[in-house]
């Protein structure tokens, strides 16, 4: 959810609200701590994993990061976001199937009784320094 209230991007980063901004802030906090711990000032690349069912909109996260990285250790870092497909396993017939929207029924038996097995990831996968 993006609620714009400001007239320009820089101003808006202070006062708009969306949970992707909280996520972006958490990523930056982690990177800052990582850089201090590893005594490096340069993070060349950071790789993120964002599941289709994680509740994070990839485009919004990219946008929030673009605004939030200014004056941080991630300011000129290449940020890679890998999307993970949502997948479920059917409790009725055990078939694994793609479930990008939470409510896709099992294609084999049409059951809605299934458990999500992937797609909820929200991870920092790797950091390249140097």
């Amino acid at each position, binding site marked *: *959810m993006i609620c714009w209230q400001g007239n320009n991007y820089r101003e808006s980063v202070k*006062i708009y*609200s969306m*949970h992707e901004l909280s996520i972006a802030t958490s990523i930056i906090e982690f990177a800052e701590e990582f850089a201090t711990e590893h005594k490096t000032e340069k993070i060349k690349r950071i790789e993120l994993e964002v599941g289709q069912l994680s*509740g994070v909109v990839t485009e919004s996260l990219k946008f929030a990061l673009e605004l939030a990285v200014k004056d941080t250790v991630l300011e000129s870092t290449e940020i890679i976001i890998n999307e993970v497909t949502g997948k479920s396993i059917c409790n009725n017939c055990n078939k694994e199937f793609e479930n990008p929207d939470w*409510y896709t029924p099992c294609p084999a038996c049409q059951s809605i009784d299934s458990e999500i097995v992937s797609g909820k990831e929200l991870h*920092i*996968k*790797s950091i*390249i320094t140097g």
Partner: protein
Amino acid sequence: MCDTCGCNDPNAGVSYHKPGEEHTHEHSHEHGHEHHYSHEHEHHHGDEHHSHHHEHSYSHEHSHDGHTHNHDHNHEHTDHSYQHEHTHEKEFKIEHDILNKNNMLAERNRGYFEAKKIKAINLVSSPGSGKTTLLEKTIAAQKDKLSFFVIEGDQQTMNDADRIHATRVPVIQINTGSGCHLDAEMINKAVKQLDVSDNSILLIENVGNLVCPAMFDLGESHRVVVISVTEGDDKPLKYPHMFHSSDICIINKTDLLPYVDFNVEKAKEYALRINHHLEFFELSAKTGQGMDAWYAWLKKNMG
């Protein structure tokens, strides 16, 4: 704006208020000023005594075998200009859960609630679905039998806390400022100020928003999503994340069903497609219709 410190930066963010108390928010936020200091200090080495500035320009005296000599020296570390032609690329595999900080704190809250036998209920919905009315009526009808504490979450105003305060149960308002959800840290701070008793029900009314609060575990025992019949019956399909993460779904304002197109069975079917574990209550907080089943559930879950 805060009268004590004069802060009004929206980024300063979250504040906590109890009705009837003037100023309860914490002054832990940072102010944007820097301290520049230069200092001199003196220290002693054995019998010698010297003082120096922190810029590596010092003169000192010392003695060797009876003769004394003085020497001054100044040295500045200027321009170590190393040219690194090669790069030191290093890859670190991490696997860090981005929500880890919130999740860890939520588990701390959960442990605290369990130890004190507090049932924390996180109520989520879009704005205007009737969460506050549901709480008011529930408290009024059950407060002789159950002990209630309430945390209210809104971006601004004390309105909801004032309504709960009128029912004479302890309440604290969290104003999130620009924030669109409550998180585990806010609950942790609010609970400390609220001083929740053992064996009670902690009702947490989240910020009205069907998107963002879904991602933030507060350490609650149950998550209750409220929809009202004045909304579309396809709401569960539009906001699946919230319905997937809830245990209970309350369909509110059922007294208005004759006047709207909301199809209760369809809404339930959609919600079950997202989360087949969901338990439903159909009620009208305003008229009291269907509230007994909800009260029975609260009572059962306190046991």
